[in-house]
């Protein structure tokens, strides 16, 4: 596990098995995924702990992450399996905690579970029963 952007957040996991293209498929005002082919179609990423493999698409997507945050519709934290520069710089711009995990840890992060993400704690991600 690796911390890319520091911070602390507590919330429910919203998990996607597919990558996310922030430029064009996430509504900047509401945080709702508008891509009909995406597993999270019509769901809002607002106030979630967003868990997904990695970002795809133009690096300009980093500005989208910043806009979503400015509109108060951003996830509380993001957890990815692979660090891509679009999501890394987007989270850095918007000050959203970002952690990368291995595939085993990824498996354990189930949709709907409540977790605490804390870059200052030893285990970084803790489940809240």
């Amino acid at each position, binding site marked *: 596990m*690796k911390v890319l952007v520091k911070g602390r957040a507590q919330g429910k996991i919203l998990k996607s098995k597919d990558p996310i293209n922030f430029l064009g498929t996430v509504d900047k005002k509401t945080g709702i995924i508008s891509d009909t082919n995406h597993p999270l179609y019509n769901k809002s990423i607002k106030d979630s702990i967003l868990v997904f493999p990695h970002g795809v698409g133009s690096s300009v997507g*980093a500005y989208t992450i910043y806009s979503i945050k400015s509109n108060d519709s951003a996830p509380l934290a993001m957890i990815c399996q692979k660090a891509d520069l679009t999501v890394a710089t987007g989270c850095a*711009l918007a000050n959203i905690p970002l952690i990368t995990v291995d595939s085993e840890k990824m498996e354990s992060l189930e949709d709907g579970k409540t977790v605490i993400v804390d870059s200052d704690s030893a285990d970084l991600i803790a489940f809240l029963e």
Partner: protein
Amino acid sequence: MELTREEESALKGEHGETMQMAYRILVATGEATDAERLVPIEWAHLSGVNYNTIGDAGEEFLSSLSKDARVKVKTTLNPMGFDIDNVANYNLDDNFIEKQLSIAKSYERMGVTPSFSCIPYEIFDIPKEGTQVSFAESNAAIHANSVDGIKTNKESAFSALASAITGKSPYSSLRKDDTPSLTINMKIDDPNELTYGMLGFFAGKVGNNSVNISGVGEMDRRSCKALCGGMGTSGTCAKFVFGQGTPECEKVDFDKKEMQNIHDELNTSEKGDMITLGSPQLGLEEISDLVVKLKGRSFTKRCMIFCPRSVKEQARNLGHTNELERAGCEILSDCCTCLTPLISKDDVDSVTTNSIKGAYYLKNSNGVDVNLKPLSQIIEEETR
């Protein structure tokens, strides 16, 4: 990543919110690219200027950032969407012009040199060998690492901006002494700049961080820029070294079949409704050469020529702009073929160009068909 005490305190916000954000970007980028520390850089070249690419979100972000952010090192700028001298001749809406000028103003407020050029290596002095810089424009990063003897990662718009504000960059991949693990054997006889563009496009696809290229002879500046432009368009490879490399290197041929594949991918039309020259922008040498090649003839269709403003001024002093305008050229500074809003599929179906980088963006961003021809053939077939 190991940070100095000073960097650590900036990351905690002790030097203000802007510095904190800039360091957050450097640390996130550094962790993502396995850098162990930050190093000082002497020159940043920023992308993320064209309103066509960064949109409202980018314009708003830069406007708010420029209230207190100031660059710490020499910082230059990629092209924007138009040339203010002749934008009235094109069908561009007022909103685009207003937002683009706001973006330009924000960068200037931060202390950035408004060069609006993708060939900083041709219009500014190159610092001494081994100097660390941060170039976000891919063709310029490749040129810096491969031709100019200076070092940069292939930066994102944001990491280069953070580097401009802090004067630092993550010490990763190409800043270290990188040795390519792949060698491309060039197997095409009598190459022209279009061949080199396709070689670059191929290298970008098969290479990772860096590649060796063997089997190429003397290359003129036009061909070298074409190679850098093509390579930066298709992948993340940001350096080439001439030669065979070490015996352990994996070998791959760039032969007629590979070249044909790329040609088929990007050449979608047998003719063009108009011509564009430049992507990367033309330097003074290429403009002078074009004047010589024209020998008083004129283009039989529209021909847009893209170059930096400083080159346009030098060309004017030499009488070249007069000669090119006589030949029917539209000379545009501050912008480029790549991601231009000035070519629309409402007006033209297809564009002839000798640029692989230009072809890729014309096809994928402007949505027009592309007809690829080397400059010599363009002059032969499209002028009289």
